[in-house]
């Protein structure tokens, strides 16, 4: 276990380093990405820009600039170029919205994904299965901005039962928090529900023909118990790894579209705005933040995996 953790921490450092260097370099290469322009404004004189370059160290070699930025990030003093506010504070402010979105929709997509997957597998080949297949294909292939706009039109404009976007903190107004989040939760979940139910369906259909399922039936267990304890339990193991990575991606700002469509002011929307303004520090920090979550959650997934399937040993 200790060995596993050490390896994972080393891997995390490697991933964060690689991804930060890449992101940093990409923004150096983008035309029109001159940070002095962001800081000085479009109308600034060449003299001001030169002064800014000198002040902020943009005239230094690229590896030194990288080092300076990393130092600022890890001391929490990094500021954005466009508004010159502390990036870490911004993310901290946006995180509750993103976490609310991620956790809520994760519950929904897991619940419905498993439910539809099981129904589909049990009714394999029948009309129910076929309808669910079509539904999940629609779910997977409908873009979030279309679906989001559609539900906003239907449930916030035509029938005004939900607010048209925005975020209310849970601590201030629990019921407002809920009504603001229900639409984004479902919109974000649809893709995952479609995807998870398809994967689970095929896992179940593979598992159901295993010898140990026949053994379970031969023991005289009820169909329900065979299905839940032997078929479903074993079929869910691969779902765990999918879920860990998807969940990490959503927390790390991956739900950019959903957050933007519903104006949730979360980490993803912050990333989207920063990219538009070619504002390197927030993009860099959010990218690293997302990568951090992916690495941490994949380690958690591996630990859960080893618990669920004792044949697997943690080796890093």
């Amino acid at each position, binding site marked *: 276990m200790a060995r596993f953790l050490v390896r994972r921490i080393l891997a995390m450092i490697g991933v964060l380093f690689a991804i930060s260097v890449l992101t940093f370099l990409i923004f150096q290469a983008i035309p029109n990405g001159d940070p002095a322009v962001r800081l000085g404004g479009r109308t600034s004189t060449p003299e001001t820009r030169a002064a800014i370059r000198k002040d902020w160290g943009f005239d230094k070699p690229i590896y030194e600039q990288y080092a300076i930025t990393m130092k600022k990030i890890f001391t929490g003093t990094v500021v954005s170029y466009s508004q010159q506010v502390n990036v870490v504070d911004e993310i901290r402010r946006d995180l509750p919205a993103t976490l609310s979105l991620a956790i809520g929709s994760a519950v929904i997509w897991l619940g419905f994904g498993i439910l539809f997957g099981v129904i589909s597998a049990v009714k394999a080949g029948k009309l129910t299965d076929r309808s669910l297949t079509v539904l999940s294909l629609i779910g997977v292939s409908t873009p979030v901005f279309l679906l989001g706009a559609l539900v906003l039109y239907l449930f916030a404009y035509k029938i005004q039962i939900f607010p048209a976007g925005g975020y209310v903190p849970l601590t201030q107004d629990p019921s407002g928090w809920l009504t603001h989040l229900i639409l984004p939760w479902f919109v974000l979940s649809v893709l995952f529900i479609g995807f998870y139910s398809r994967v689970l369906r095929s896992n179940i259909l593979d598992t159901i023909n295993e010898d140990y399922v026949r*053994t379970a039936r*031969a023991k*005289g*267990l*009820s169909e329900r118990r065979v299905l839940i*304890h032997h078929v479903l339990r074993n079929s869910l193991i691969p779902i765990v790894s999918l879920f860990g990575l998807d969940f990490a991606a959503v927390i790390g700002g991956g739900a950019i579209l959903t957050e933007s469509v519903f104006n949730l002011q979360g980490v993803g929307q912050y990333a989207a705005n920063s990219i538009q303004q070619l504002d390197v520090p927030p993009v860099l920090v959010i990218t690293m933040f997302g990568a951090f979550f992916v690495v941490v959650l994949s380690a958690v997934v591996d630990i859960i995996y080893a618990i*669920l399937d*004792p*044949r697997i040993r943690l080796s890093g």
Partner: protein
Amino acid sequence: MAQPLLEVEDLRVSFATDQGTVQAVDGVSFHLNPGEVLSIVGESGSGKSVTAMSIVGLTRGPNARISGSVRYQGKELTTASNEELQAIRGDQIAMVFQDPMSSFNPVQKIGDQIIEAILAHRDMPKDEARARAVDSLGSVGIPDPSTRAQHYPFEYSGGMRQRAMIAMALALEPAILIADEPTTALDVTIQAQILELLKELNAERDLSVILITHDLGVVAEIADRVHVMYAGQIVEGGTLDEIFYDPQQPVHVGADGLIDAARSAAARSPAADRGAAALADLAARRLPLPASLPARVRQVRRAAGA
């Protein structure tokens, strides 16, 4: 003579597949007396496993058609409800399967899987079920059973796993044990141990056993009576001595013997010549064409005068 424990009469099982209907079992009848070891032998695909599984309804499904009669202690099982069958499976009639490697759920402890079987049929505290599972593991010769019960299947060797399988089947002291190729996946020394164990259990507990195998060596070890299956039918039946010393069918001499028999008959009739060719063709493929097999083989056998 006492009433048979199990009577199978004109059992027919067919499956609808993409390649047409497969008549896996075609009018099989036999009975099992209390305390007896009945062996059903036959080649791969002869329908012996399907026969075994159909006894407790494990072949039921949307694509299966089952007819005929299976009576356990006078109770008809082919028309019994799924719940009635569940009550009998594992408790009255237990099964052991061919591959002990894949027959346990790989992610659950052996002990827990046995406890699950016990609790499916008996209303008792879990501790009591655990004690019973451990006893059962011990009784089939697993050393240190209380520790081994905590282990996962992958921590068992193949022979130990088959013992554990038998322990699970016997935990509820069933009247009948159906062992479907219990030794096929094991190496020879382990095979002998498992057969010895079955023999002991048969003698000590008066356990009736249906032993399904393609291995006549296994049959010779422990069977009281033998039925030979071919192409979904029982083609010969009798005591061990009758089958071994006075065979009436060329089937159990193996596919080569059957072809020889057909060839020698070919000298007598031209139809048999065609039959022999068809049979050699089948034998060359090893696993015969499922949908067309029974009719063809029967035709060949008739032609061969066998």
